[in-house]
């Protein structure tokens, strides 16, 4: 009985120490932010206009393919990555998957005014402008047509790695995705992205370990919440696509997670058996001396 009391006291102080240094301290160090909003209700989106993909195809061919490739319908990039990076600061994305990766209302808002949809207006002051011009001179119907077209050409299924490649890899390298082959470097050369963003965006190889899943969702959905003034744009990923990005980060950064979780239970099961036998033997031995 006395031993049990002593154990409770030790556990009590250990518990308070753990609580103070871990969960409590973390709430102080990382103040609460609002939950992510995947409806992007802060932007003026499609406003319920139904778009025509057929009309959208023509509008896109006329207005967009000067900078953007659409490989899924055979439209190649107008120039190579290095050249476009040096002109625009960053490689313009291929639009094949945009209709699936990004929220439709967000896309509409983005086409109208990229800097405000991405929440990066603070970067484009004193004459600097977003590399993609605003299309707010278009009719809302035309914008809806563009979005409808992009949604119609996008693949129905897309792998985690492809989501990352399309939505993130222009700026972020993820070395561990191909450690020896080197194919998962950022597609925009370092020098260009550094002058465009102000710094080289971090390699994401271990971001699944250095940031929690909750933080990643909050951050990707609106970078300004956690890092006010950051140059990282809000890209408008749907929750489904964002989940795929995080799954990819886990595949690359914590590839042994499944093995760890499946080994844990049997390992602890063995230790329970070990502990039971240890106690039984202790009781047997000490019975002789009490």
């Amino acid at each position, binding site marked *: 009985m006395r031993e049990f009391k002593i154990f409770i006291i030790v556990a009590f102080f250990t518990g308070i120490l753990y609580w103070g240094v871990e969960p409590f301290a973390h709430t102080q160090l990382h103040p609460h932010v609002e939950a992510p909003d995947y409806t992007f209700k802060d932007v003026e989106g499609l406003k319920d206009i139904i778009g025509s993909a057929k009309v959208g195809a023509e509008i896109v061919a006329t207005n967009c393919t000067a900078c953007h490739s659409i490989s899924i319908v055979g439209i190649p990039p107008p120039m190579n990555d290095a050249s476009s990076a040096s002109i625009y600061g960053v490689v313009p994305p291929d639009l094949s998957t945009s209709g699936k990766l990004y929220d439709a209302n967000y896309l509409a808002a983005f086409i109208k005014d990229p800097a405000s949809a991405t929440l990066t207006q603070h970067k484009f002051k004193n004459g600097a402008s977003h590399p993609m011009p605003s299309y707010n001179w278009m009719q809302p119907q035309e914008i809806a047509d563009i979005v409808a077209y992009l949604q119609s050409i996008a693949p129905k299924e897309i792998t985690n790695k492809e989501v990352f490649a399309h939505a993130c890899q222009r700026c972020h390298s993820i070395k561990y995705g191909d*450690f*020896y082959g080197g194919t998962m470097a950022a597609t925009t050369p370092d020098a260009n992205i550094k002058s465009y963003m102000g710094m080289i965006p971090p390699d994401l190889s271990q971001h699944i370990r250095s940031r929690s899943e909750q933080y990643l969702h909050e951050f990707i959905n609106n970078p300004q919440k956690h890092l006010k003034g950051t140059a990282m744009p809000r890209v408008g990923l749907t929750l489904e696509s964002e989940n795929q990005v995080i799954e990819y980060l886990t595949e690359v950064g914590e590839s042994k997670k499944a093995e760890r979780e499946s080994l844990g239970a049997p390992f602890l099961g*063995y230790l329970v*058996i*070990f502990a039971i*036998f*240890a106690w*039984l*033997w202790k009781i*047997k*031995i000490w019975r*002789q001396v009490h």
Partner: protein
Amino acid sequence: MSNQTNRRDFLGMSFAAIAAVGGIASLVGMKRAWDPLPSVLAAGFTTIDLSKINLVPGTPQTFAWRGKPIFILEKTSDMAKFDGDLVIADKRYTVAVGLCTHLGCIPAWNKDKWKCACHGGAFNANGQQVFGPPPKPLVIPPFTVNGTILTFGYEGTESKAMIKARVQG
């Protein structure tokens, strides 16, 4: 020791056995931590396209596979045909690991045979030992053939046949 060891300590022995099981499992885990890494095993496959490497008949070239030299010789019409040749289209090749079977030095090609500088061993154009201390012909690496492309790392029918011919020949 306790004076009452007349009864077997079954509980103690079971406990010891359980602890031993844990110990052995740990040793197995430790052994596996020393296994070659997946990237090392993957890098153990090298591909060579015979049509692209510009072989000059009668002059062998050397390539690296798993850190070892590989000799590839396209035989001239003068060189005798051998059952253990690699035949692709109408050309005959000798493919072998370029390490002397005596003590592992790399022999050098001299006109019509490989001569080892370390202890004077010699191998003919078929890779068979013809002089000196080497006890066996040059080793045939495991490889598969696909058209003119050789992939080193897996055993294929051609490499098996080449090994067999040398044992008999």
